[in-house]
């Protein structure tokens, strides 16, 4: 006898593993970000210092990846929450689609914030 709901055959292994890897990456990035922002709280937040920092391509790469990894980790987490509820396939697929569009849109928007310099 087989169970009526075998679930989708797609393995969740990559998603599960990337969630952990991106999590660790985010921890490192977050610590850096926090030190930077709070070590010199008055000057660190000013436009001048931000402008200066953004002239360095390495910082640009850092923030670009921060945006991508952050959005991925966040939305993948939300997707995990969504899948914890039994729902019709069309509904879960709609939610997934909306999340992907939202993710891409905000990634582009975030990129613009960085690439404007």
């Amino acid at each position: 006898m087989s169970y009526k709901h075998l679930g989708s055959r797609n393995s969740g292994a990559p998603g599960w593993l990337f969630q952990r890897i991106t999590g660790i990456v985010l921890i490192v990035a977050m610590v850096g970000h926090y030190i930077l922002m709070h070590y010199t709280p008055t000057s660190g937040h000013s436009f001048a210092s931000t402008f200066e920092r953004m002239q360095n391509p390495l910082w640009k790469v850092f923030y670009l990846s921060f945006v991508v990894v952050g959005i991925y980790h966040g939305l993948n987490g939300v997707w995990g929450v969504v899948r914890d509820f039994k729902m019709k396939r069309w509904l879960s697929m709609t939610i997934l689609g909306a999340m992907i569009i939202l993710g891409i849109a905000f990634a582009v928007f975030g990129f613009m914030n960085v690439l404007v310099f």
Partner: protein
Amino acid sequence: MQVTFSIQRYDSSKDKKPYRQEFKLDVEPTDRILDCLDRIKWDFEGSLTYRRSCSHGICGSDAININGKNMLACQVLIQDIKKKRIKIDPIPGMPIIKDLVVDTTDFFAKYEVVKPYLIAKNPPPKERFQSVADRALIDEAVNCILCGACTSSCPSMWGNPNYLGPAAMLKAYRFAFDSRDEAPAEHLEAIDTSDGVWRCHTIFNCVEACPKEINLTWHISQLKKKMVEREL
């Protein structure tokens, strides 16, 4: 000493919704909850219904919810519960047939999904050898009595009843990690789905609920690691 039992009653053949009934009982601190249920049934309310058989925690019939925690009625003494008021419910997440008796059809259907049997061909004339260390790997997993306390305690299962649940995962582990099994992949494949092992969020409710003190989450995390190795 006197203890109040508040028991959820429901007869699926006639009641629309469950209701609660209270019983006051003089008990000894060393009485089992099951003994108390028996006394209520025999002396007060003949229609109180629950499952039981071995009465010492090996058959797995009498998993119930006591004060919000899943446990075996025969394995908990009055003195283990520090309260004078004992709330008794059927284990959650499964349809109720009558009072404390739940429908376990789905639970066992999920168990069957993972191919819960040794897959091995061409047996040798004598026993298959297995080292003490290999046997130790499945030592905890073979203790499972299929009482359902774990699966019923899992928030992932409450949200998504299709989730296979910790008991089925443990069974998959028991065979996938048995050195004698020749097709671990077959057991693993069954749980490597969206309703399978990936719905486990290491909440540890199953570990708290297990009357045989099996650390199910540890076993599930071994399965996840094996799955990642297999996929990538």
